[in-house]
């Protein structure tokens, strides 16, 4: 797709003949053929790239002032907030950036679920995406430990203790993770190291994600393949560069709203209390983006069972391309799946709410039902729908559903209307 690029400058040509880097960038960013009917749900790929880069840049700068030591970490974060020039801004961007990163990634994943973007031939894109999501979870969790407040400390304690559920080797593994007999400096230092490393691994996976995407090309709201060499596609630049840029701008306004007006609304005030190994906060909750998984963990009365179920809740996503037996991609043409889709989204939101509540009484019962449904959606609903669902007829091409009914009629009557622009 990129071999037709001719650098205009002599230096560019000299460079490109020896290393076709410009070729590569050009081919993937400018003429890359993109379905012409992508809606705004497709802009989140660009938004997520922005989020990752923002986290890397602000994180790099914060690391210049942060000290990863149990005695100094909390103070160094306060030092960033009070003393460092614009430290408050950089930290609030980083902390809220993590939240918005997850908001965007959940929308991105929900988009894929709705339009069947994970299906053949895009399974690998989806699986790489699941790994990116896993790394994001690990990175966000370790990052939350670094300020060494009460929530940091007890979050780290609870999550690292999950490993003690592993039969036989559990205690040995937790001791190894801690580098001691409790959560303390050694753990903080290694979390900091890994928290610094992982975004670069995510970045590498993002490159693979985009590379894999550019082999079959984008899915689209109709969920049908583009007709090669037709008017189904437009060049990525300027059409989607501008559309993505506009969506990114709106996203940045929301981002700025959080950073400047309610920077702590998504956090927990207990994390402004220095870590105290002798006292657990009354009600410990993870960051909002982990709540659905936290609810799944707590819905199981067995320690090991809870851990296994929570890990499975994410792992099962990787098998989705094969659990979904339907040949039709887009939920637009799957009337039953569309309803189950929204039921599933509601279930995840419900789990998120339950994760924020004290796990007892009615909350526990509803939590168990919601957890059961989460897995049923993947194990029972998705495989069966492919066999029982009567899907709507698919359009012949992307251009077809874009036409209005009147134009459709004219076309059928053999008038001069083409798929192009129609003057009335």
């Amino acid at each position, binding site marked *: 797709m990129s071999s037709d690029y001719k650098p205009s400058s002599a230096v560019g040509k000299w460079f490109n003949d020896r290393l076709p880097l410009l070729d590569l960038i050009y081919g993937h960013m400018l003429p890359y053929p993109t379905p012409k009917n992508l809606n705004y749900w497709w802009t989140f790929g660009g938004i997520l790239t922005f989020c990752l880069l923002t986290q890397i840049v602000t994180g790099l700068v914060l690391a210049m002032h942060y000290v990863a030591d149990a005695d100094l970490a909390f103070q160094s974060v306060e*030092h960033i907030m009070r003393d*460092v020039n614009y*430290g408050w801004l950089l930290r609030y961007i980083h902390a809220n950036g993590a939240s918005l990163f997850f908001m965007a990634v959940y929308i991105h994943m929900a988009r894929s679920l709705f339009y069947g973007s994970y299906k053949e031939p895009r399974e690998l894109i989806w699986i790489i995406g699941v790994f990116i999501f896993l790394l994001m979870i690990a990175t966000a969790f370790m990052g939350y430990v670094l300020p060494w407040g009460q929530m940091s400390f007890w979050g780290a304690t609870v999550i690292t203790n999950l490993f003690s559920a592993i039969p036989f080797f559990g205690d040995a593994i937790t001791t190894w993770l801690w580098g001691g007999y409790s959560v303390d400096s050694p753990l903080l230092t290694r979390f900091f190291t890994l928290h610094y490393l992982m975004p670069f691994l995510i970045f590498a996976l993002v490159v693979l994600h985009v590379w894999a995407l550019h082999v079959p090309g984008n899915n689209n709201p109709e969920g049908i393949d583009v007709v090669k060499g037709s008017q189904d596609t437009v060049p990525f630049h300027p059409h989607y560069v501008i559309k993505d840029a506009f969506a990114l701008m709106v996203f940045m306004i929301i981002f700025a709203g959080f950073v400047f007006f309610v920077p702590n609304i998504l956090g927990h005030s207990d994390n402004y209390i220095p870590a105290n190994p002798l006292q657990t906060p009354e009600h410990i909750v993870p960051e909002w983006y982990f709540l659905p998984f936290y609810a799944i963990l707590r819905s199981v009365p067995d320690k090991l069972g809870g851990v296994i179920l929570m890990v499975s809740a994410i792992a099962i996503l990787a098998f989705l391309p094969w659990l979904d037996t339907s040949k039709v991609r887009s939920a637009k043409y799957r009337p039953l799946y569309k309803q189950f889709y929204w039921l599933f989204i509601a279930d995840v939101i419900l789990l998120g709410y339950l994760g924020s509540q004290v796990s007892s009484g009615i909350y526990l019962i509803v939590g168990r039902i919601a957890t059961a449904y989460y897995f049923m959606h993947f194990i029972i609903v998705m495989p069966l729908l492919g066999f029982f669902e009567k899907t709507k007829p698919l359009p012949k091409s992307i251009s077809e559903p874009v036409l209005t009914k009147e134009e459709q009629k004219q076309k059928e009557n053999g008038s001069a209307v083409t798929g192009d622009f129609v003057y009335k």
Partner: protein
Amino acid sequence: MGEKKVTRRNFLYITTGAFSAAGAGAVAWPFITQMNPDASVKALASTEVDLRPIVPGQSITILWRGKPVFIRRRTKEEITEAQKVAITDLPDPEDDTERVQNPEWLVMVGVCTHLGCIPLGQKGDYNGWYCPCHGSHYDTSGRIRKGPAPTNLEIPEYVFLNDNTIKIG
């Protein structure tokens, strides 16, 4: 040459470009200035020194902004020696009176102006300071006399709060 008409598009291009440039600058600035001295560093930017324990002919070195500051109570001979030097003999001409507020007290940053080493006191060919790194000789007023250093030892900003106390910075 046809007259170029200013179109709406020209206007939009220029305003978009101008706003983008201003926005990019505003975003870049916090990332740049975060590396400048922060409030906690600035809070330590001045130091008060009690001069009473220092007898004539004795020097002390104190730490100010992470750098050594030499405070020397000069002897009569050192003052005379510093004052009688012909200004034309100096690579970096500066009269001794310009370098002190009170001739008895010489206060200067103890960092060689060549490449940042700390000169040794009362050494060298001019009875002042001598830098062991690359052999710069300073006189009893801390002025460069011989060697690679380009300028005299720097005089920090300081005031006498009273006869016995100075505040540096």
